[in-house]
C-alpha cells in the first residue's frame, strides 16, 4: 500500500467504525515510517469531522458516532506516546464533567468523542463532579476549556456553584467555561456567566474551537 492508500483506508475504516482495521492500518503505517502526526491530521481527525457533519445533517446516528470514536481511540492509544515524542501538540486541553447531583453521562461522552476527534486532549472527570473537584482538576491540568454538563433542571444550578468556586479560587479568567446538557439553553448559559453553550456534540466542537481562537487572538493582541 502507498501512504496515500493507507491514509484513505484509515479515513474510510474510521468512518465505518471498524476498530480492528483502523488499528491494523495504524501499525502498518508506522512500520512504513509514516509520521504519527500525518495519521492524526490527515486521516483520523478528518474522519471524525465527517462523522460530526453527517450527525448534524441527520445522516449518522448515535451508534455510528460511538463506534467511529472508539475506532479512533484505539489508534490514538498507539499514536499518543509517539505524538508526544515528536512534539505534536493537541489543539487544546478540555476538562469535562457532569455536575454534582447528576449521574447522566451519555451526552457528555458523545461530546468527549467529538472533541477528541477534533484533536483536543480531553480529561473526563466523570459524573457527580463537585465544584472543588473541578477546581482541583483545573489547577492540576491547566486546561484551555472546562465543560459542565447537566441533564436535569434541578442540577443546572450547579453551573453557578461551579462558577462561584472558580471565582473564589482565582481561576475564572484562566479558563474558558462551556456548559451544556438537555435542558440547558443559551439564555441559561448567559445567566450563569458561561463563555459558551452548544446544543449538541458537533456544535460543541465548533464553539470550542471558536472560543479558543478568540482567546488566543486576545492574548496575542
Amino acid at each position, binding site marked *: 500500500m502507498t501512504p496515500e492508500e493507507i491514509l484513505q483506508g484509515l479515513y474510510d475504516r474510521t468512518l465505518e467504525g471498524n476498530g480492528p482495521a483502523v488499528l491494523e492500518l495504524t501499525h502498518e503505517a508506522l512500520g512504513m515510517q509514516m509520521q504519527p502526526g500525518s495519521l492524526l491530521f490527515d486521516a483520523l481527525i478528518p474522519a471524525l469531522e465527517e462523522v460530526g457533519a453527517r450527525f448534524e445533517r441527520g445522516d449518522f*446516528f*448515535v451508534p455510528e*458516532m*460511538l463506534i467511529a470514536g472508539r475506532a479512533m481511540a484505539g489508534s490514538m492509544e498507539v499514536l499518543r506516546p509517539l505524538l508526544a515524542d515528536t512534539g505534536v501538540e493537541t489543539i487544546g486541553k478540555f476538562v469535562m464533567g457532569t455536575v454534582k447531583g447528576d*449521574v447522566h453521562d*451519555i451526552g457528555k461522552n458523545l461530546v468527549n468523542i467529538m472533541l477528541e476527534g477534533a484533536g483536543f486532549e480531553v480529561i473526563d472527570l466523570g*459524573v*457527580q463532579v463537585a465544584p472543588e473537584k473541578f477546581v482541583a482538576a483545573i489547577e492540576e491540568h491547566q486546561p484551555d476549556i472546562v465543560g459542565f454538563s447537566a441533564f436535569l433542571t434541578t442540577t*443546572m444550578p450547579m453551573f453557578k456553584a461551579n462558577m462561584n468556586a472558580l471565582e473564589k479560587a482565582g481561576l475564572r479568567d484562566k479558563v474558558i467555561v462551556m456548559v451544556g446538557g438537555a*435542558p440547558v439553553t443559551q439564555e441559561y448559559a448567559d445567566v450563569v456567566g458561561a463563555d459558551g453553550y452548544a446544543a449538541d456534540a458537533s456544535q460543541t466542537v465548533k464553539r470550542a474551537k471558536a472560543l479558543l481562537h478568540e482567546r488566543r487572538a486576545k492574548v496575542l493582541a
Partner: protein
Amino acid sequence: MGAAPVRETRLRSATKEVVLASNRPFCIIGERINPTGRKVFQAQLRAGDYSAIEKDVLAQVAGGADVLDVNMGVPLTDEPELLVRAIGIVQSLTDLPVCIDSSVVEALEAGLAAYKGRALVNSCTAEDDRLAAVLPLVKKYDAAIIALPNDHDEIPMESGKRIELTEKIVRVATEEYGIAIEDIVIDPLAMPIGADPTVGVAALETIRAIHERWGLNMTCGASNVSFGMPGRHAINAAWLPLAMGVGMTSAIMDARTPQVVEAVRAADLLLGHDEWGGAWISAFRRRQAAEAALAQAAEAAQAALAT
C-alpha cells in the same frame, strides 16, 4: 420461588380512578405537559400564557392517555407556583388522574397540596437524602411514588445492583415511612440501546426480576430506549410489548403517537388484559366512525362546491 401477588396502585382524580396492575390494561401516562426543551412553551409560561397546556392536555386525552404527567420545570421561574397553576388547569380540563413530575421537593409538596385526588409522584431515587425528602410527602398526601433504582454514584448497568436498590426502596418506604407496597412504582431504568447494545436485555431482566419477586408496578420513559436512533416510534412500539411481557405495567409516553399506543393496546389484548378484545374493537369502531364522518364531510364540501 412462587409468583408475587398482583399489586394494585390506585390513582384518582376528583371523580375517576385508574388502577395499575399486572393483570390490567397497560397504563399510558401522557407526557407532553412538559416545557423541557420547548423554547416557545417556556417563554409563554414565563409570560403567564397557559394556552399551550390546554392544547397538550386535549391532545394527550384524545390520543388515549390514562394518566397525565405534569412537569413545569422551567429554569429561572417559581416552579411550585407554576406547577400548582398547571395542575389546576389540567384538572379543569380532564378527569384523568395526574402524575406530578418534579425533582424540586417544594414543587412536589405544593403540587400535592393543590391536587384533588390521589396522585402519582414522579419521582425519587434510592439516595438517602431524596428518600428522606420525598417519602414523607407521599405519605402525608396519600399518594403513590415512582422510584428509580439509582443511587448517588451512578446509574447501575447490571440488573443485580438495580434489584438491590429496589430492595432498599421497598424497605425504606414500607418500614420507615409506612407507605403501602402497592403504592411503590419502580422505573427500572431503560437506557438508550444506541449507546450500548446490552441495555435492552439488562432492563428486561430487571423488570422480570422485580415482577417475580415483589409484583410491583413499573413504569418507564418509553422513548428513552430509542434515543439517537432513526425510526424511534417503531423502536418504542417494539420495546413496550417486550417489557409488558415480563411485567411492565405503565409507561410515560406521548399519547399522540398512534403507532406506539396501538402496539401497547395490541399487547394488552395478546396478554389477556383486554378480554374478548372489547377495548381493541371499540377503538377500531371509533376510528372507523371518525373516518366515515371525515369522508362524509369531504363529500358534502365537494357537493357544495359543485352547485
